[in-house]
């Protein structure tokens, strides 16, 4: 197990190094710095706006903010685990490197989970800062710490739940695995659109938190069923029966890769009509 941990850390380190190189070290415009500033500004605006829009902020209280935070981070986590997990664990650059070396696939999977922790911690901190504005001043800073810890835990568990879903989906029905991305993508766009409409019509995070507080039992039960328990299951399985997780992941990976190979072997066939000749084609080709 010791070897797995050090190997997982090496995988995570390579991911951090790549991100550091891309966003800071070799970026002429220091894209990472710009991104952090943009995130900070957005949350700053949000923090300033949340109590102002809903003067009865205190009514939402810590429980409302916590429920909102956990729901959001769980959603981000499960989506990240599934969609990004699919890119990293089944299609990414490191997949063939792992296949040609004696490194165990389990380290690859664990490494990707560890790699996500710093970014998740930072994003959760920003949101915790934002949502802590719902809590009245004397309790705000302890609330921020609590929101951060709860959000991080929810996000991590949901990430594992997303990976569990991905692992089983890849193992038992790899041909439809890509549709999961479409599902999460469509759902995310729908939620972002709904949030934008809600906020543009004068709604606020505080009001949302109040609604969340009212529906707390139902929301927490759903979260536990969708993200908490599956995430916990994978966490326990990784500790108790890592070979079980590894064999499912490895079998699924080869099934997915096999399907990919078949796609490249099949002759390309387009279901779109060909462009006509003449002016239209000339114009479109120039575009």
């Amino acid at each position, binding site marked *: 197990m010791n070897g797995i941990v050090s190997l997982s850390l090496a995988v995570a380190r*390579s991911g951090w*190094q790549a*991100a550091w*190189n891309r966003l800071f070290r070799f970026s002429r415009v220091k894209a990472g710095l710009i991104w952090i500033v943009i995130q900070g500004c957005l949350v700053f605006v949000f923090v300033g706006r949340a109590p102002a829009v809903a003067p009865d902020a205190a009514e939402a209280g810590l429980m409302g903010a916590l429920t909102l935070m956990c729901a959001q981070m769980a959603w981000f986590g499960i989506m990240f685990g599934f969609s990004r997990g699919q890119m990293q664990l089944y299609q990414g*650059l490191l997949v063939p490197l*792992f296949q040609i*070396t*004696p490194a165990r696939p389990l380290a690859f999977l664990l490494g990707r989970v560890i790699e996500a922790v710093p970014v998740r911690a930072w994003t959760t901190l920003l949101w915790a800062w934002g949502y802590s504005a719902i809590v009245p001043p004397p309790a705000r800073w302890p609330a921020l710490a609590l929101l951060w810890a709860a959000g991080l835990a929810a996000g991590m568990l949901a990430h594992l739940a997303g990976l569990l879903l991905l692992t089983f989906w890849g193992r038992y029905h790899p041909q439809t695995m890509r549709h999961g991305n479409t599902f999460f993508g469509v759902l995310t766009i729908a939620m972002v659109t709904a949030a934008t409409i809600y906020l543009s019509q004068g709604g606020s995070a505080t009001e949302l938190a109040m609604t969340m507080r009212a529906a707390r039992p139902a929301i927490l039960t759903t979260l536990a069923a969708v993200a908490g328990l599956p995430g916990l299951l994978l966490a326990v399985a990784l500790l108790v029966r890592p070979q079980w997780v590894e064999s499912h992941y490895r079998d699924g990976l080869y099934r997915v890769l096999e399907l990919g*190979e078949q796609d490249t072997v*099949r002759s390309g066939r387009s279901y779109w009509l060909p462009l006509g000749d003449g002016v239209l084609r000339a114009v479109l080709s120039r575009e």
Partner: protein
Amino acid sequence: MACQPAILLENLTKTYDGYPAVQGLSLIVMPGEIFGFLGANGAGKTTTMRMMVGLLPPTSGRVLIQGHDVWRDPAPAKRAIGYVPDTPILHELLTAREFLWFMADLYGMSRSEGRARAEELLEMMGLAPHADRLIRDFSLGMKRKMAIATALLHRPRVLLLDEVTNGLDARAAREVKDLIKAWARDGVAVVLTTHILSVAEELSDRIGLIHRGRLIAGGTACELARKAGMPGANLEETFLALTGDALPDEAGALEGGPR
């Protein structure tokens, strides 16, 4: 130990939806031998290589590397293999040095050993001045050299080289060819695929011709010319003659074939 084949392929087959990409391919390569694997585009060379290295599971058959099955006992087999793919597999957002360190971790090398070996290979491949540059910014030739350095990192006893001289300038190609000969002298078994027939002819102790997924002929360049009924012909003429009108009855000729 010297009698144990470095590479043993037994009836290796790969089919996609009933389409046979590789059919019943059997082959033995001994330590210190350079085996040239030739075939037209789509003949099945790269598919065979990918099955040998653990990238693509075979539909049936076995791949043994130093006696270890790549698919049933992968760790020792993969520790023995160094693979240079036709398209280099590199983490392009790492620097050359960072990437070699990472690969050393994947091969289970100690930190000090991995770092020392990385420096040695960067020097050997002429990449030391570029060690702290992103691989993304490398030319194709430099990426090819990085792939070779990666394949050599863990001192493999079996080297699988897929179009290894592609993208290299004349000097670098010469250096790589000299290195391949040196590795073979040290007892490393080398399998190389190439479209450049002169490279295969110059380096290979034996050559195998794969056509439509079948190994249709094998032996030295002279033996192949005789099999094609063209004694004295060069490898290009032989290759065109054999692959233009394949000899299916010679499938499997290399298993236990002339040494």
